[in-house]
């Protein structure tokens, strides 16, 4: 079996940088459309934080304050964190686990798709949906909860929370590489719901039991929520730099775990 080189030249079929950028955009666009049309995703990711906010921030407690901050304002930061976490975990992990487990990712990998376009699309999707959830919370709060924030503060809050999508997207990728296609949503909730509670996203931090308050300090959503609360002038006024550093460290750990899964899928570990 001798292969001759004649006619096998690959020259001239490289992709240009702008073509690659186009692929990233298109991948993200269709990832967005795909999930937008997926009611399971939009319903759970957008409706739940909004429903909680309406119930606990607008229907009940809307005249109360936490420290100097009104409850509707305070809860935008915490339910915003809750929403961002949900959008990011479900935006990455459930799709990845299903694509991996049921063969679709292999079809994509066999194609000339730049491998990172696939992941980038999921992260971008998570950020877009995070922005949508936070924006809707702000609209609800301003319209029905008497929330009054300077525009710059609202933009900072939105930016902080959308940036906070990254650690949870990384966490979602890690989960997506180790969860089965059908069990992924359950696995996500196994992390999502306890983390949310223990980080003070449902019940404000100071009302949590003492033990849970100590656990919270080790949890990434706690740090993101404190950053968001800091933007609206409340929270525990710890160092923002420390919160960011911890979130960055968490992101890197999750990416490391995801990378192990990625390499395992490439068959390199089984070489």
């Amino acid at each position: 079996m001798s292969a001759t080189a004649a006619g096998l030249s690959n020259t001239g079929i490289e992709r240009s940088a702008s073509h690659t950028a186009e692929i990233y955009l298109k991948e993200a666009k269709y990832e967005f459309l795909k999930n937008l049309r997926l009611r399971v995703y939009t319903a759970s990711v957008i409706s739940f934080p909004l429903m909680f906010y309406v119930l606990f921030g607008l229907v009940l407690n809307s005249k109360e304050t936490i420290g100097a901050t009104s409850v509707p304002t305070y809860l935008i930061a915490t339910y915003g964190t809750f929403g961002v976490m949900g959008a990011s975990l479900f935006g990455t992990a459930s799709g990845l686990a299903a694509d991996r487990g049921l063969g679709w990712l292999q079809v994509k990998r066999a194609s000339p798709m730049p491998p990172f376009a696939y992941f980038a699309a999921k992260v971008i999707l998570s950020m877009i949906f995070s922005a949508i959830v936070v924006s809707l919370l702000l609209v609800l709060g301003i319209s029905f909860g008497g929330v009054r924030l300077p525009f710059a503060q609202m933009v900072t809050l939105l930016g902080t929370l959308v940036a906070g999508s990254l650690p949870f997207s990384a966490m979602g990728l890690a989960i997506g590489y180790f969860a089965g296609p059908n069990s992924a949503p359950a696995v996500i909730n196994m992390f999502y719901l306890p983390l949310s509670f223990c980080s003070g996203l449902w019940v404000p931090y100071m009302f949590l039991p003492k033990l849970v308050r100590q656990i919270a300090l080790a949890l990434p959503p706690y740090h993101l929520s404190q950053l968001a609360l800091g933007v609206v002038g409340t929270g525990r006024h710890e160092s923002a730099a420390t919160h960011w550093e911890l979130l960055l460290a968490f992101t890197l750990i999750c990416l490391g775990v995801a990378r192990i899964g990625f390499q395992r899928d490439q068959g390199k570990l089984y070489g």
Partner: protein
Amino acid sequence: MIATTEYSPSALRSDTGTVVASLEAVSKNYEKVRALRNINFSVRAGQVVALLGPNGAGKTTAVKLLLGLIQPNSGKARVFSGDPTNPQNRLRTGAMLQVGRVPETLRVREHIDLFSSYYTNPLPLHDVLAAAGLEKLCDRKFGDLSGGQRQRTLFALAICGNPDLLFLDEPTVGLDVEARRTLWEEIRRLVDCGKTVLLTTHYLEEADALADRIAVINQGEIIAEGTPAEIKAQTSGKRIRCITSLALASILNIPGVTDVRQDREAVEIQAREAEPVVRALLARDASLSALEITSAGLEEAFLALTQDNGQKVDSQS
């Protein structure tokens, strides 16, 4: 494995093509299961090569190795003389794989648009839709398609980039007879345009209808390889059934007998030609009764070829 020394016209033609994809002494294990054992196999430019075998034979593993989706435990998979994972090679290949779930909320045209965008020289959407027979379905969501329509969409994704080399893993599974024939036509058209196709199938009829060369694979080993005519010559034959007092081993010694097995009170004998074997049988056993001679059908003969793990084929050659 059968070595064919006689060149049929198609074998001559195939030797002029350059090897564009090959497995060289490849073995692949999954955990403790040996999926492929020391496989040598190649696809030449402009050919349709069929990997033919029952489910679980290792066909899909071979395709995945050539696509660089998995790595061999030993040996080498090569595409366009290089590593299958090479991005430039992937720009020249298209693949249709068996897949459990495709994103269901995207429309057919959107799936094709996305996959086309990966390639440097994709076919126009209209041509892809026409080739896959999807013109009227292009605005349907994938989740609303029937099984056959889904297969056709996956076929469209494989060809949309106008690739030189096409891998089709069980392309016609789930298609009705008419859709299958239409897809065959389309595959022939691709080859007429100079494309190279590796397809896997468990239908001998499909391999026969499309392939220039067939490699029969069973339990991870290639047990026969050749043109469809050569494969058929190896697999087709006569089946003789009779009640006899002769021992199985002594029947197997009769020249021309390829296989013998006990079937209830009778024995079933596979033979290339019936007459000399029957003559020998009658000469040795005067009490022989209930004699029947039938032609082994292609599918049946193929089953016989794969069922005994190639030993019979070795003894034939």
